[in-house]
């Protein structure tokens, strides 16, 4: 098995799915000749030609709208928003057309597209390049919303997303694009959309997280074990919507204490829904208020201050200690 970065793993998923299925194609700004500004689509134009690897004008609504049309016609387009911060130019397409076509046509037309976009901070980028606004999509019926945390699950989730009969918003944690490598098997793996994973078992506390912060949460868990003798269970959500609340319940009912960790703004963020589900399904098991360790409700700061915006290991540990001591 090859040791790949997340960029390479996603590239592999695209390449293999395009090889396996003629109806898969890729479109977006700079995804062709340039191979994507993060090189995620590198080499695809050369292998598959410009019919299937389209360098588009700078027009997000047009990109998503065209992809939606192609999908209606039976293609499986994978479109890229250069940064999630620019996907709002296409928000009315996603909300008003992409997410609704199956329902509006009562199943006559479906929209098996994937809308990929790098999200999140930590790479010293400019304004609008570091946001984490998965809530917008998770709150939109008809869309699915997934976020991998490492090369291997990125590849597997993307394969699932491409094969999924419904539109999937696919957030890529750009902080993890090249930060570590993982073995990724050559044969196509999939991961069921809507299922989370326990990535560390524990009995004292549940850390719920996803994306770039899964690594940090795991580090925090190790440190808690070392320093506090506390065994934290870590859940990597993978899917924000559908949210795997059964997996959450199992863990919470075991530990009774929960910390949610995300980069997204705290208020009205994914953590709120997770708390609501825990409230609904595991209320009587909770021994302390659920803690949110999240981005603040401010405009995501420029990079000189962003390390204080994004939850780091010590903030996670602080949150855990609060949950444990409450």
């Amino acid at each position, binding site marked *: 098995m090859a040791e790949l970065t997340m960029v390479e793993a996603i590239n592999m998923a695209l390449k293999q799915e395009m090889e396996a299925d003629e109806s898969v194609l890729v479109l977006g700004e700079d995804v062709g000749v340039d191979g994507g500004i993060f090189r995620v689509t590198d080499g695809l134009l050369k292998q598959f030609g410009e019919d299937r690897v389209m360098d588009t004008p700078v027009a997000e609504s*047009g990109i998503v709208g*065209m992809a*939606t049309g192609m999908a*209606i*016609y039976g293609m499986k387009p994978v479109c890229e928003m250069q940064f999630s911060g620019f996907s709002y130019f296409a928000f009315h397409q996603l909300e*008003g057309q992409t997410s609704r076509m199956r329902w509006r046509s*009562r199943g006559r037309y479906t929209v098996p597209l994937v809308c990929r976009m790098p999200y999140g901070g930590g790479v010293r980028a400019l304004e609008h390049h570091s946001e984490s606004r998965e809530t917008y999509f998770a709150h939109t019926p008809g869309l699915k919303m997934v976020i991998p945390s490492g090369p291997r699950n990125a590849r597997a989730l993307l394969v699932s997303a491409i094969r999924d009969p419904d539109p999937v918003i696919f957030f890529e944690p750009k902080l993890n694009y090249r930060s570590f490598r993982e073995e990724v098997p050559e044969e196509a793996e999939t991961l069921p959309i809507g299922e989370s994973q326990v990535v560390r078992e524990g009995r004292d506390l549940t850390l719920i997280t996803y994306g770039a912060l899964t690594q940090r949460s795991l580090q925090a868990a190790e440190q808690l074990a070392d320093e506090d003798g506390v065994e934290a269970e870590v859940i990597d959500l993978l899917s924000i919507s559908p949210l795997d609340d059964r997996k959450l319940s199992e863990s919470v009912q075991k530990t009774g204490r929960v910390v949610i960790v995300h980069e997204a703004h705290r208020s009205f963020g994914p953590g709120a829904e997770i708390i609501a589900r825990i409230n609904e399904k595991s209320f009587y098991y909770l021994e302390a208020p659920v803690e949110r360790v999240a981005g603040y409700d401010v405009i995501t700061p420029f990079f000189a201050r962003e390390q204080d915006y994004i939850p780091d290991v010590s903030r996670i540990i602080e949150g855990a200690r609060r949950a444990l001591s409450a």
Partner: protein
Amino acid sequence: MPRKKLKPKLQLEYLSVLDDKGKLDKDLEPKIDGKTLKRMHRVMLLCRRFDEHLLKWQRQGRVGTFAPVKGQEASQIGSVAALKDEDWVVPSFRETAVALWRGTPLTGLILYNAGYNEGGQIPENQNDLPISIPVASQMCQAVGIAYAMKIRREKKVTMVYFGDGATSEGDFHESLNMAQVFNTPTVFLCQNNHWAISVPREQQTASSTLAQKALAYGMPGIQVDGNDLLAVYAATQEAVERARKGEGPTLIECVTYRLSVHTTADDPSKYRSDDEVETWMERDPIIRMQQYLKDKKLLTEKQIKKIDEEVVEEVNKAWDEAAEQMEDLGDPLDMFDHVYADMPPYLKEQRDALKQSMEVRRG
């Protein structure tokens, strides 16, 4: 060299074939066989009568808000008739005549207007997208569909309908630009009916025609008399053929007029004069078409009258059928269908909760 007028290549024309009174310019008459002409006329009339009935039913509270076609029948039928069945149609929200031409049953349209989205379902083998309400946002879907046709080498065409108001939206721009950049077989059919709700065409944009907007994309544009079925047909036919041959998209502006309300929630007396409406009444596309058919000896006044009676009967029958269908519809639990291919667990739970609550209420 230094200061000069730029003369970008313009392909921009105006076309009219039948004059205001239905009189023909023989040289420009498109070839349409008698059977097709008669069908065109029949669907125009059916649509007109259906409109009238919907209006009445709406006032009686039997259906909800809808957007009448009255006055735009030639723009719709003249254009859609230039397509083959295998071509695709992407409508906006006012294309009732188009839908009827393509095969949507009246009952479906009634159900839709009565608030049942079952009515929006397009019959199998009819390649139309459902009604799309957010102005201009359906246009990029049409470009995407056409692109897929193109790379599959299928020689099909996608036609997308929109209004004068839609030309102001960003999606209009992105769609036309991308259609030309990717040379897709798309026909952009703009029904300039002079009004976007209360905003007149002149306040919508300061360009003297809508057709000239094509130049911004290096696309051919043509303006036609949209109340002249033959002109609309001729222009569309050309555009469709160009698209089918791989020569790319066209923007067609049909200059027509909305003779009725914007929707049944609208009161046009707030913003336009009866005089203006009267002037356009005189250019009624159906009357012009009938004159042409009579001149061509394809129909007599008596036959027209008979057709009129037939279509009214058809409409009334459709109501009865639809009303019957409605009795079996409206199960609230259906709202959980078709959100996703497979219902995710949280939706199942919500559905079960509603089901249980319905049972409790029924006692």
